[in-house]
């Protein structure tokens, strides 16, 4: 209990400092004290029984370490790391594949230009991942497995991680051959296979021939898409009932929106709508052979 008291006095000191104008600029009133208290008020382990780390935790870690090292050693004895011909900058292999963990991004090149697939999209992924804890304000499901209380979060993560990231890596690794054409596993790679490129830009399809007009058309489509997306998200959330799985917010949808605030709503909406955009672009490509939606002299999307 001593540490608890020490902590409270630290909070008092911090508050005094804030009142004196010290840290006040950086932390909103009250925010600072909440933060300091956080490490003491651990989630978890309320009335739960505690075990000695030695031997209980160290034992399982030790066994797991041995198991992993054995598996790794056997694997390394059986399977050699690849080493191909010496590097030769004049002979480009077809296909040239990035390391497997980046193949999801390389697969995106089918649908987007490199500046988007290779630079903007990965930046969204990294920043979006980092923001998750700040965007998700649902206090439920902290420290235990639950689907019911966090359906929305888990489904979003599932779409982003399992579908977009993992399954695209699998496609890039096993289903792409020369010319980045689709080959089934076991199918012979025919390097001379030519697939007709019949893709057409969406504005062109709608009869726009002039650059400016098609740029305006494409841009309005994209802006419209975001407007519809935001509106859909807004009304969908507002109509959430108060019960499960939103029980953390007894006021239902309106309360969620109020607690969420416009900044969180804006950023979450942007990330989700951009993510859904990948699927829409893919669908347009597969169904209608659409190449770009927005065509300008500088960028195409």
């Amino acid at each position, binding site marked *: 209990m001593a540490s608890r008291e020490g902590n409270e006095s630290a909070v008092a000191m911090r508050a005094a400092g804030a009142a004196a104008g010290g840290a006040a600029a950086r932390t909103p009133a009250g925010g600072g004290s909440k933060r300091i208290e956080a490490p003491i008020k651990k989630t978890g382990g309320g009335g739960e029984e505690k075990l000695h780390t030695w031997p209980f935790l160290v034992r399982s870690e030790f066994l797991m370490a041995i198991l992993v090292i054995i598996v790794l050693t056997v694997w390394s004895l059986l399977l050699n790391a690849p080493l191909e011909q010496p590097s030769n900058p004049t002979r480009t*292999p077809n296909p040239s594949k990035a390391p497997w963990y980046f193949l999801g991004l390389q697969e995106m090149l089918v649908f987007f230009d490199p500046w988007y697939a290779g630079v903007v999209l990965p930046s969204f992924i990294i920043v979006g991942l980092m923001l998750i804890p700040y965007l998700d304000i649902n206090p439920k499901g902290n420290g235990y*497995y*639950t689907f019911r209380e966090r359906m929305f979060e888990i489904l979003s993560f599932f779409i982003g991680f399992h579908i977009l990231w993992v399954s695209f890596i699998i496609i890039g690794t096993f289903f792409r051959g020369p010319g980045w054409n689709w080959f089934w596993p076991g199918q012979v790679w025919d390097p001379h296979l030519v697939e007709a490129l019949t893709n057409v830009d969406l504005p062109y399809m709608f009869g726009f021939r002039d650059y400016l007009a098609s740029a305006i058309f494409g841009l309005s489509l994209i802006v419209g898409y975001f407007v519809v997306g935001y509106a859909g998200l807004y009304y969908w959330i507002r109509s959430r009932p108060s019960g499960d799985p939103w029980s953390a917010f007894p006021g239902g949808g309106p309360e969620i929106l109020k607690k969420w605030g416009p900044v969180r709503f804006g950023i979450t909406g942007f990330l989700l709508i951009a993510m859904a955009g990948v699927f829409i672009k893919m669908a347009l490509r597969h169904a209608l052979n659409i190449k770009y939606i927005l065509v300008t002299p500088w960028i195409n999307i």
Partner: protein
Amino acid sequence: MAKFDWNETKRQITDSQAWQSIFRHGYEDTPRNRILMVSGNVWLHLHPSKVQKHAVRLRFTWCMGGITFLLFLVTVVTGVYLMFYYRPTAEYAYADMKYLEFDMPFGMLMRNMHRWAAHGMVIAVWLHMFRVFMTGSYKPPREFNWVVGVILLVLTLLLSFTGYLLPWDQLSIWAVTVGSNMARATPLLGHGGPFHEVLGVNPVYDARAFIFGGAEIGPHTLLRFYILHCIFFPLIAGIFMAVHFWRIRRDGMSGPL
């Protein structure tokens, strides 16, 4: 001749000043010793001396954070071994790989373990992130440790990616070419990207040239990636891991209230 008394010898050793200076407490299984085992040991001290019951369960953590760290350590150890035999120059790099595989004792095994542990680390870190997401462990007060985790994830990928070039074979230079071509397409900063005219970047002076150390992939790239792979990224990853572990220690494992 006195009969040799094993217990007496053992007692003499464990009572000696040298022994006592190293091992501070006995091994009896007492609650006190159980705590001292952890708190008196710099490595085990990464742990708290007591943990909640659920945190020990494999079902909760899948042990994936720990496995990621273990695989990282494996790559450090095997990587040092490889460094003894590998020269990061275009003339020697590939030949050294062959030499390592065919002439060095355990060379092939070390290379395989290094490679597969690195791949395993990428998979383990994803699974770890997945588990942390599924248990909602990024929620307050652990938001920032999740951010540190994302940085570690990026560093893990960068470590793997820079290492990919080092064998200097067809696989490595073309994979790295494809990967780095993205940098060429960076808006503003890459010479193939949109708005590149604004800053006037060109193939010898743009984002990709910064990564390659020149307009094309070449010996300069090899040296650059070698230093990033063996010194820079491991160091940075180590620093972030220290922060990561420290914060887990401070905040405790997440768990049901």
